[in-house]
């Protein structure tokens, strides 16, 4: 049983949302800490944080590959059929001269999720084996910035709306890629939610 340290020995923490300076309380195994002034979540204790992050990121990477290789949707009307995958769709937009939209979709639905998965693996796989990869600091910082641009969960809603719109015009066959893309949404969200950033910096502090 760990004895509780006096409050003055607990490390200081500053709330990002309101700049409140406070002492970090001791938290239970599954516990989380909110800012005492504005209620913002400061951090959480996540059991097996590193294992979960790696497992879900690996699963995500596999789903990402499937989602980009197999056809996303097939569309049949009047004896003609087209099928498309994600990259093909972006190229279609680019060919039609709407390169800004093409770039936006490429970035938010392909590059950002891929980069997010790769960076999670790059940072946390070495941590699992008690090592620290070179450039962990910039890699983790880039990860923090890129996550908000990963909008695949919004994209899935867009797909559902488009399906309803098209169903009256033609036969729509959802492809393998679509199912794995839906899986990817849950897996990536889970991976990002299992990250405890404090572990990264604690490990870096120990090394220096």
């Amino acid at each position, binding site marked *: 049983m760990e004895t509780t340290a006096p409050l003055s020995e607990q*490390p*200081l*923490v*500053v*709330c*990002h*949302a*309101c*700049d*409140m*300076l406070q002492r970090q309380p001791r938290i239970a195994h599954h516990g989380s800490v909110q800012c*005492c*002034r*504005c209620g*913002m979540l400061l*951090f959480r204790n996540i059991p097996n944080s590193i294992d979960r992050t790696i497992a879900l990121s690996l699963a995500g990477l596999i789903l990402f590959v499937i989602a980009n290789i197999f056809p996303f*949707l097939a*569309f049949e*009307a*009047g004896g*003609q059929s*087209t099928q*498309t995958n994600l990259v093909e*769709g*972006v190229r*279609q*937009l680019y060919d*039609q001269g*709407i390169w*800004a*939209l093409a770039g*936006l*979709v490429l970035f*938010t639905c392909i590059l950002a999720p891929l980069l997010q998965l790769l960076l999670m693996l790059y940072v946390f796989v070495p941590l699992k084996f008690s090592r620290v990869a070179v450039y962990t*600091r*910039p890699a*983790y*910082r880039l990860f*923090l910035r890129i996550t*908000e641009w990963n*909008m695949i969960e*919004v*994209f899935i*809603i*867009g*797909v559902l*709306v*488009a399906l*309803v*719109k*098209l169903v*009256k*015009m*033609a036969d729509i066959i959802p492809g393998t890629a679509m199912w794995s893309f839906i899986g990817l949404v849950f897996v990536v969200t889970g991976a990002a939610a299992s990250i405890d*950033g*404090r572990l*990264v*910096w604690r490990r*870096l*502090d120990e090394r220096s």
Partner: protein
Amino acid sequence: MSHQNSALSTSLTGCHACNLVMSIHEDAQHHAHACPRCGSKVHPRIHHSLPITWMLVCLAFLFYIPANVLPMTRVVGLGQVQEDTIMSGVIYFIQSGSWYIGMVIFIASVFVPMLKLTLLMFLLISVQRKSQWRPRERARIYRITEMVGRWSMVDIYVVTILVALVNLGIIADIDAGPAALYFAGVVIITIFAAKSFDPRLIWDNIEPQTKRS
């Protein structure tokens, strides 16, 4: 609580990336410091947060007009051309029976951007008037503006999928209209507007003892 002090009032600041608490020069609250642990830029307060946020909010309103007036999609089928704006698309969905899809588009494309811009303006004005009104609720409002913006991208993705998929030559063809670009602009600009607003300013007005330059 008796001692409610911001980090800045004790010449400290916290790094957003790694949570390191570091000391800063008292009169350097707008300067960017490099965090000694992780190297990120640390702003004790975002420089020119209010004017930049105002500018982006106004810009978003400007883009919002063509986004709603111009056509979002142009459907060419069997010699007929049909152009749809955001609202006519919503009305089409409601009339054709899939009212829930109409609601999704309406909420994502019309309601959310307007809600976000209105809430941001409310926060900007409340901070400028040094309001003491319910800081905790205003902090929650800010978190909402941060969270909802991305969902407006739904319509952009719908257009993308339609354009990419429906390309059957004479039988049917769908093109993206000019509104798609303006609307994407609205979404991106409001995301940056929410990021440039510094929620810590809400709380600076609550503590009269804080030194402010």
